[in-house]
């Protein structure tokens, strides 16, 4: 049992208790029969303790709240081009973009050079430091 886990847990509790922004904004949208997590709205900072509060507090964000937010979605699998997680993220992206407009961004890595040689325009290559070497 790594010591870290106990430490992280207490860190989380203290972080939540002293949270500067107790309203964690998350929204769950339902499109047809699929659920897409975009965000959940948590009213209480002590949601770790009481799960029921969390489930009860899921609600849609208003347009104004969305405009005032920045959503960042991270997935290693986006560059894989195949596979389950890639398909899920790719096929939900139109809905996410529709709901969030300019306030969403995906974070991806450049690590396997082979994948990128063909897809990045050659004039862009000097901008990527690791290609310069």
């Amino acid at each position, binding site marked *: 049992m*790594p*010591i*870290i*886990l106990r*430490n*992280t847990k207490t*860190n*989380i509790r203290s*972080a*939540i208790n002293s949270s500067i*922004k107790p309203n*964690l*904004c*998350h929204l*769950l949208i339902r499109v047809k*029969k*699929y*659920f*897409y*997590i*975009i965000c*959940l709205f948590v009213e209480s900072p002590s949601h770790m303790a009481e*799960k029921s509060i*969390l489930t009860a507090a899921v609600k849609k964000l208003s347009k104004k*709240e969305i405009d*005032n*937010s*920045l959503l*960042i*979605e*991270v*997935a*290693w*699998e*986006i560059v894989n*081009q195949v596979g*389950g*997680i890639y398909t*899920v993220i*790719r*096929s*939900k*992206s*139109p*809905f*996410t*973009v*529709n709901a969030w407009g*300019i306030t969403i*961004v*995906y*974070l*991806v*890595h*450049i*690590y396997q050079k082979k994948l990128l040689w063909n*897809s990045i325009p050659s004039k862009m290559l000097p*901008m*990527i*430091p690791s290609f310069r070497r």
Partner: protein
Amino acid sequence: MEFDPIEDASDDPFFQAVVQMRKAGLGVLYGRWLVTGRPKVILFDLPTVNDKLGEIKHKLWEDHGISTPDNDFLINGVIMLGEMIRIYLTILTEKFGSERNIITHFHEWMAASCLPAIRKQNLKLTSVFTTHATILGRYLAMNDPVFYDHLPFFDWSKEAKHFNIEPTANLERSAVHSSHVFTTVSEVTAQECRYLLGREPDVILPNGINNERFEALHEFQNLHLQYKKEIHDFTMTHFFHSYSFDLEKILYFFTSGRYEYLNKGFDLTLQALAQLNHRLKTEKSDMTVVRF
């Protein structure tokens, strides 16, 4: 990945943070991902933090007790991506954290190696972590035919040692425990999370795929006919040497995905086919099922 760069978007908060990261000598690209919806993406050029890798790993060990191997290509990448994301989010929260709600959503452990560090820094953001499957679950399910019956009795750290996946299991576990909201994709994975990761998922969000892309339009119907003919040809050459059946009364079934017998449920599929075969026989049906 098909990607179209954006180079002038000075009023875009995401871009401003990218520019500041570039000034620090890190390779970051900003642009649009060329799929439906054209979402904006940021590409982090991982080799640009390669020289700091030792330092990052030391911090990971010192602050969070996670030791990582020296020469694992995937884990090195995961840790470098984590560092890049940590730097990016630090810049973003410093600039915009007080005026805007910043929400981060991480999929799987490979994206989330920075989560413990982010929480330690107490950045002004909220984090959602979603597991689509657990690492230990993947290994155990492959090796244990009655995995779900044994699930409550596994000791996660012992099993992680046994399969030599301690670093990844620890990374996943630390991400799970340091996210604000933890979600998973099904009741079955929720059980895995409960016993192998030690945290009850806050919400279960089933994955779906958008089947608008696969709707059959006129063109597709024509293609469907053409391909069906080709599949018929294959079926005839493959089976008709030995015996024949009516091509008009035939159902083609397909599987997709990796051929992992237990993990991906091919054992269940075969069982289901055997039951189907039995029913077709007892009801004296004239249909034939060909399964790829």
